[in-house]
C-alpha cells in the first residue's frame, strides 16, 4: 500500500532532478545510513532488548539471549 502510494509519488509528484542537480543528494550526510557500522552495532543492541527489532533475523544476529 505504502509502496503503491510512493510509486504514485514517484510517477507524479516529484520534480525532475537532472544529474548535475544531484550534488547535494550525493553528499555523505545525505546517505540513507550515514554510519552503517554504528547502526548495525546499535541494531544488535536494540534487537537483544526490544521485541520488534529482531526482524532483521535475515542478517543473522545470534540469540541475543542476555
Amino acid at each position, binding site marked *: 500500500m505504502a509502496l503503491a502510494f510512493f510509486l504514485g509519488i514517484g510517477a507524479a509528484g516529484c520534480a525532475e532532478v537532472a544529474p548535475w542537480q544531484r550534488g547535494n543528494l550525493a553528499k555523505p550526510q545525505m546517505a540513507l545510513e550515514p554510519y552503517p557500522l554504528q547502526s548495525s552495532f546499535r541494531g544488535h543492541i536494540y534487537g537483544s532488548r526490544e521485541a520488534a527489532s529482531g526482524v532483521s533475523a535475515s542478517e543473522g544476529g545470534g540469540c541475543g*539471549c542476555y
Partner: protein
Amino acid sequence: MAAIEPVQPADDAQKPSAGPLNALTAAALALPGLVLPAAQAADDEFAVQYGHYQEENRQLFGVESKFRPITVDTLQGSGNLKLTDRVKFTFNYTQDTWSGATPIATAPLDMRGNSTSNSPDGITGATPNIVGDLFFDSNLNPLRTDGFGTVVGGPDRRLVHTLSSASPETRKQGSFKLGYEWDEAALDVGGGVSVEDDYESGFVNLGGRLDFNQKLTTLSGGLSYTSSDTNARIDHDALPYINTGAYDGQIERTAEGGKIIHGERKDWGAHLGLTQVLNKNALIEAGLGYTLGNGYMENPYKVVEVAFINDNIPPPEGAAYVGQVRALLEQRPDVRNQFNGNLGYVQHIDALDAALHFNYRYYLDDWGINAHTFESDWVQPLGHGWSVTPRIRYYSQDAADFYTPYLISNQPYNSGRFNRNLLPNHFSSDHRLSGYGALSGGVTVSKKFAKGVDVDLGFEYYTHQGGLKIGGGGEGDYADFDSWNVNGTLKVNLEALAAGADHGSHAHHHHHHGATAPAGVMFDHMLGKNGFMVGYRYMYSSQSGDMLHGSNLVGDPAIVAGGCGPNPCFVKPNSMAMHMHMLDIMYAPTDWLNLMVMPQFMDMSMTMRRLTGAPPDDEAPDGGVHIPHHVENGHETGGISDMGVYALVKLFDAGRHHLHMGLGLSIPFGAVDIELRRNHQVEGGLIHYGMQLGSGTLDFKPSLTYTGNYEDWAWGAQLSGTKRLEDHGETGYRLGDIFQTTAWGGYGLTNWLTATLRGVYTIQGAVQGEFNQFIDRLGPMDYPMNYGGRFWDVGFGLNATIPSGDLAGNSLGVEWLQPVATDYNGYQLDRDGTLSATWHYAF
C-alpha cells in the same frame, strides 16, 4: 558498492552546454544507483569498529546486588571489494563477548528473589531465589512477611526481577555478499553463520535492486532464510529449582548432571523497498517487511514464577492462601508472524549544508505486539573534515498476549505432578515482551583525516521505562533500566586513498625499510616524513594436547600431585585458544621519529577435563560444584585489551642497513577482574590469570631493530622486551617480564611475493604475586608459578605487496610460528603454534 561518486554541484544558472551536459548525464546515469540503499558502502572500503554496551544497575528495592550488570564488547570488521567493474564482494565479521547479571524471573517482592536465604533483607545479596512460599489475601494479593513466614503487613503488590549472573560468553559471526551490478540494476546473494556456545545460526539471502526514472527511483527487494539451533545449558546455579517438565522431549542430560535444552527454529523473511528522490534536496524511502518465525523461540534462560495455591496448607494468621512458588521454563508459541513498515525522509538544509534524517517504523506481530519506532538525526558538517550528528530515538511496544510477570494457579504443586492444562498454553515474564517505551539520545562525532580515512566516535544513552509506553499501561517501574553504549569506527577507503596519492605532491610511496619482515614482527620499519600508515594485525595462538612440566611430558597423577602447589589439582586445561585483533596506526612527523598507536581487542577460550586420580570433587575448595561446569562448558573471555603507544627513533640509515629503536608503553585498558559465574550458590571467583584481557599494569616496551636488504634478499634482527612498571595491578598480581630476540631472512620470489624464515627465542617470567580476590583454584592455570618459561620457535612466512590495480600499495603478510623447544615454568599445556596475519597500507 557504490554509488555516489560526488557529482559536482552546479547552479542552474551555469548549466553546462549541451555537449558536456550530455556527457555528464551519461556519466551520472552510468553510476550504479545514485542513492545508496541502507548499509551499502563505497568500493574498496574497509572498516573496523569497537563497541561497548553497558547496562546500569537494576531496581532491587534495597538489596545490594554484587552482580555486575550486563556489559557487551563488540568488534566488527567489514570490507567492500570491487572484484571487477561489475562484481562486488562484501564481507562482515562481528564478535561480541558479554557477561554480567540478567533477570532470570520476576516475582512479588516478598519472594526475596535476590536475597540470601539466611538474611531475608540481606545486603550481601543475590542468590537467584526462585522457589519458596508466598502468602496471599482473599483477593490473591501477595502479603508482606518478615521473611520467616509471619505476615507483617497488608498487600504488597510490588514486583522485582530476580537476577542471575553469567560467565563471559563469545559469539562470532561472519557473513558475505556477492553482487553483480548492471547499469540500472543489481543482484546479490549472501550468507553467513553465527556461532556461540548455546546458539548457532546459518542464513542465506537474495537481494535485488532496480533503478529507473533516470535513477530517481530505486526499487529493492530481498528474501532470506535463517536456520537456528539452540543448545542451551539450563542455568546451572538455579537448575535444581527449575521445572523443565514442559520440555522433557528436548532435554539432554549430560554426564555431569547438567541439562541441555535443544531447539530448532527457522525464519523466512521478505522485504520490499522504494527510494525516491523528491527534489534536489530531499529523498524518501519506504519499505515493507514480513518475517515468519517457526520453532523454538523461547529464551532458554528465562523462567516464570508460578504460585501454586495449596488449600491443604493452613495459611498463617492474616493470610487467606498459601502459594508454593515454583519456577517453570517459559513457553512461547511456535509460530510468529511479523510485519513491519518503515518510512524515511532525508532533507538537505542548504543554509547549514546539513542533512536531517527522519525514520518511522511500525511493527506488528501475532503475539500481540505493536511497536512504533521514531528516529531522527541531524548530520552537521563543521569544516576541516569534522562533522557532528546528534540523534534521538523513541521506541514503544505493547506487551505480548502471553506476557505475565508471574502466574497464580489454583492447584497444589504436588511435587511436580500438577495439571499443566490448568496453566495458560504460553507464558513468559521476559521484560522484552512487556509493554514499555524506550528513549535514547546520543551524538556521533566524525573526522575525515585524509582523503579516504574516517574516524567516527559515537555515544548513546538509553532508558527503558514502563511509563514511556505510548498510551500508558506499561510495565511497572521495577523493570526500568538504563544503559549506554559507545563505539569507535575507523574506515579506510583505498580507492580514495589511491586517488589522493596520485594527485598529491607526495606521490612517491614512502619507502618501507625492511617491509619484508615476517608478519609476526612488530616495529619492523619506519615511514618517511609525513608518511601515514594504517594496518591490522591478527594473531591466533593455540595450546592443546599434553601437559608439560618444564620440558617434560607429565601424566595426570603427576599433575594432581604437583601442579597445584600444596593442593591437589582436580582439572587440567585441554585446549586454549587466543585471538588478538590489533589496529596499527603509524604517523611520521619527521624522518627520524615515527609515532604509533595500537589498540587491541582480544578473545580467549579454553576447555578443561578432569584429571584421572584426582581426589573426589567434594574435596575441592569449592566443594566441587564448579567442576562439572568447567569440564562441560569451558570458559570464554573477550573484549578490549591493553593499548600500546610507541615512538620509533631512527639510529642509523645507510642504504642497505637500517637501525631503529622503539620506546613504548602498554596502557592497561584490558580487564583483569573477569569473574566466572556462581554455581549452586557458590561464587565462581576470578577467572585465571591467562584469560584476563590485559596485564593490569603499565608496561614499558623497548625494542631495537636492525634490517638490511640486498637485491632480492632482506634480513633483520630484533631485541624486544616488556618490563612491568608497577608492582601489581588492581587485582593484586603482575605478569612476568618478557625478553625476546629474533632474526629473519627473506627472499623475493617474484616482484610482489616474498618468503621469510626466522627464529625466535623468548623468556617470560612467572606471574608475580597473586589475585587479591577469590579465585576458585582447581587446576594448574589457577596458580601463579605455572606461567612463563623459555621458548624457541621457527617462523615460516609469506609477504605480498599488491603491485598494481585498485589495491596497489597494500601489503599482506602471514606467518606460522612453530614451537621447537619449550621449557615451561611449572605445569602448563603444550604449545601448538601461533599464526600471524597482517595488512598494511601506507600513504
